């Protein structure tokens, strides 16, 4: 597989796409491509995305989606980034679209059928949709990895051919590729576990037989903004790992709302704290592991949470350097509104993580 990423920060979509087109055509190492993935800033006119891509690139083999910022190798791009993929052997990408009403049946059957493939999910941000996906139950191990695209002021869509998907998911099903992935966390768990007494969907109501909002009352002392709490995500405890949860909203004396959901098997939470250096060390450790597990990586997908970007601030770019240096492969990705990863027979929506996926054609 040959993978190339090109980007443009031209504020006119047409010119940004033309700039990328010219760059890929001047690349001596790739003379054609089988599939293109576009990450397009939310500020571009969304109605023109399909039209401009088709006009400039003259292809139907693409997927585009809105982002705030995307990753072009070691750069964070505030414009358009495009990943061009050319398979050299039997590699293939199949594109599937699912709407909310198809999650319980069509999507579930799809995951069972394609359980041995890399299935890369791109989901629009919608709490009900994501809860539906993560509440699916399977009897066997499945494979799903990817991210939730951002949504700002009602904009945040997926684009393919003639379609604009405003609420739904697209899965890129890769055939004849090998892959390994890592969910990178790196938060410092602090203090004892607390029992979840009442939680539903994305809201936590009662912890240790007390109003959950009592926790945030103390956490917000002398602080103004809920985003300050992103430095101390709540960790949902599982047997061998934890799921960080990012604070979204607080209803005094009632509940705390998070960007991810609570499931019936989530029983305990723990406080945590983020330290930039420790997060970066964890990045390096996990990237090295990925490199050991999959030799000769040809492409890296990086789905990194906006809340992680917020706490890493200027150090976020270092995360990109660590991945690029360690994995030595083209890196494409974006800042997500949640990372989706199957673990055994369960689909989990993570927050504040970086999901790193190394791919190589068979």
């Amino acid at each position, binding site marked *: 597989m040959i993978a190339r990423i090109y980007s443009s920060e031209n504020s006119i979509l047409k010119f940004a796409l033309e700039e990328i087109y010219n760059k890929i055509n001047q690349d001596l190492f790739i003379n054609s491509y089988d599939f293109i993935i576009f990450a397009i800033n939310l500020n571009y006119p969304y109605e023109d995305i399909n039209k401009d891509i088709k006009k400039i690139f003259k292809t139907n083999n693409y997927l585009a989606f809105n982002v705030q910022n995307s990753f072009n190798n070691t750069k964070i791009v505030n414009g358009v980034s495009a990943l061009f993929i050319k398979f050299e052997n039997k590699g293939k990408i199949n594109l599937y679209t699912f709407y909310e009403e198809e999650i319980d049946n069509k999507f579930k059957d799809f995951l069972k059928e394609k359980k041995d493939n890399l299935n890369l999910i791109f989901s629009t941000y919608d709490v009900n949709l994501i809860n539906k996906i993560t509440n699916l139950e399977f009897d066997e191990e499945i494979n799903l990895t990817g991210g939730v695209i951002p949504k700002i002021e009602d904009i945040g869509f997926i684009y393919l051919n003639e379609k604009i998907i405003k609420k739904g998911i697209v899965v890129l099903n890769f055939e004849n590729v090998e892959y390994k992935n890592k969910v990178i966390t790196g938060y410092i768990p*602090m203090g*004892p576990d607390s029992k979840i007494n009442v939680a539903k969907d994305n809201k936590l109501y009662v912890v240790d037989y007390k109003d959950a909002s009592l*926790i945030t009352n*103390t956490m917000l002392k002398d602080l103004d903004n809920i985003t300050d*709490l992103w*430095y101390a995500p709540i960790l949902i405890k599982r047997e061998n790992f934890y799921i960080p949860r990012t604070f979204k909203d607080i209803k005094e004396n009632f509940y705390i709302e998070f960007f991810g959901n609570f499931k019936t098997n989530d029983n305990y939470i723990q*406080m945590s*704290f983020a330290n930039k250096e420790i997060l970066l060390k964890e990045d390096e450790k996990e990237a090295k592991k990925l490199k050991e597990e999959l030799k000769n990586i040809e492409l890296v997908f990086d789905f990194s949470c906006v809340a992680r970007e917020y706490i890493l601030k200027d150090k976020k770019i270092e995360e990109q350097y660590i991945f690029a240096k360690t994995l030595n492969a083209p890196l494409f990705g974006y800042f997500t509104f949640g990372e989706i990863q199957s673990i055994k027979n369960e689909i989990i929506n993570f927050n504040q993580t970086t999901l790193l996926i190394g791919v190589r054609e068979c």
Partner: protein
Amino acid sequence: MLNEQTLLLNVIEIITSKYNEILEENKFLVKKLKEKALYDTLTHLLNRDEFFNRLKTKKNFCLLFIDLDNFKEANDTYGHEIGDKILIEFANLLKNFFKGKDLIGRIGGDEFIVAVMDCNKNNIKSILKNLLLEIKNHFKSYNITASIGAGFYPDDNKNIETIIKIADERMYKVKKSTKNGFCIE
């Protein structure tokens, strides 16, 4: 940076408060466990082990073995709930009757044990007469009385095990004859 430090302090405050709660909870559990280890759960009198443990250091006492008469019949007639109520009321009666340094325990079923301090064969009789009268009056409606055997330290023996045996045998003497009485020799 300032925000991060403030938040960290706030998180530590939550954790400290949580640890304090755990500490309080543990103290409560330890207290409960201790109570369970030392006291009979139904009557809250000393249990057998704790009774004899405390008796070890005593030098001059009268050991009473008390068995309720007709308790089994009351239990069968009125049910276990009433049976338990009788045992609790009997324990309270003993607690009100014996004061100060005296030790009171339940050794199982309807058998109780009391160590009356600084007491000998001469002065125990009036105490036991009054005790029997009080029991008879209190439990008249259930026809419950008591058979009591007494052993004396050091007059009967200086070995506690032997004193217990003596008191037990004397209690059985009463039980097999008249009931509602006591035997001190």
